[in-house]
């Protein structure tokens, strides 16, 4: 049951991340033309509901997708199982979520 749910979450976040990643890559490649400055980044993101929503969703999806992916690596390449494995997985997801949302707030909210 649990493996089914994790599989569903992994594939669903993958489908969601595909267009988000493409958009992010396009933005990165566009924005780094002729050098990147904080002013340029923040001019785009400060107070923007669009970018706040975009990156907020991105962070949520990545936190789930990355944690489940790391879980598979840990289970298969280090032999971890049970509560230790699930605990680390949850911790990774929370770490990515917290740091990610903090970064979104940093570039979208007022300094």
């Amino acid at each position, binding site marked *: 049951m649990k493996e*089914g749910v994790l599989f569903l979450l992994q594939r669903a976040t993958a489908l969601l991340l595909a267009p988000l990643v493409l958009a992010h890559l396009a933005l990165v490649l566009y924005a780094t033309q002729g050098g990147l400055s904080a002013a340029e980044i923040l001019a785009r993101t400060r107070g923007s509901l669009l970018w706040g929503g975009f990156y907020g969703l991105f962070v949520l999806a990545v936190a789930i997708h990355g944690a489940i992916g790391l879980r598979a690596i840990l289970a298969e390449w280090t032999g971890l199982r049970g509560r230790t494995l699930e605990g680390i997985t949850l911790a990774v997801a929370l770490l990515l979520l917290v740091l990610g949302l903090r970064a979104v707030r940093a570039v979208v909210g007022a300094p």
Partner: protein
Amino acid sequence: MAEAAACGGRMLEVRIWRGRDDGAFVSYEVPARANQTVLDVVTWVQRHLEPTLAYRFACRVGVCGSCAMTVNGRPRWTCRTHVGRLAGDGPLAIEPLRNLPRIRDLVCDLEPFFTRWQRAGGRFVATSTRRDPLPRIAPDSEARRAVDAGIECINCAVCHAACDVVAWRPEYLGPAPLNRAWTLVNDIRHGAREETLDRVRGDAGCHACHSQMSCSEFCPVGIAPTAAIAGLKRASLRHLLGRRDE
């Protein structure tokens, strides 16, 4: 030797695993022939050089799967592996199938493979008796085509040996058992479809597959367990999302 003279004296160096897990490769020299299979080579060694060499074979014509071994790192049927067509110039290296306990020399214990086969529930459950009319199954229906694609499996365990998830997850059912389950799930006569699906979508089941496709790459019968496992993944998702119909 008369044999060596007959083939122009060319010899082939062969390294064969002797012993169990703590054994080692032992080198033998075998007369090289224009057409010989790896099974021919092993047989020659046992008959002329090493009578105590343990190995398995039966039909020697590529229909039973008994002679499966690891040849130059790859799981293969040795009766269907021509020495002349093997890549590389180095000596031929022959050892037992991977991911199975070694009994002796080239023989491994297939019990873990068959235990997984049982655990995956590959047992057909009948729903009709001889008094009922024969069920009509269209051969070109999607379900029947799915069954046909996987029905030729003869349990040779080459896919089990090829799969790295089998190596990394001791509880993983493996390609052949999952492929078998998929053939049952698609058989409209099978009376325990839900039970079969339950057995293969648990923690040790289809979701552990990463589509490395080593099973499909090495299956000597041309089955693609990857496709069957993908089907099971989809069936599992449908069940999760509350849609139990096909």
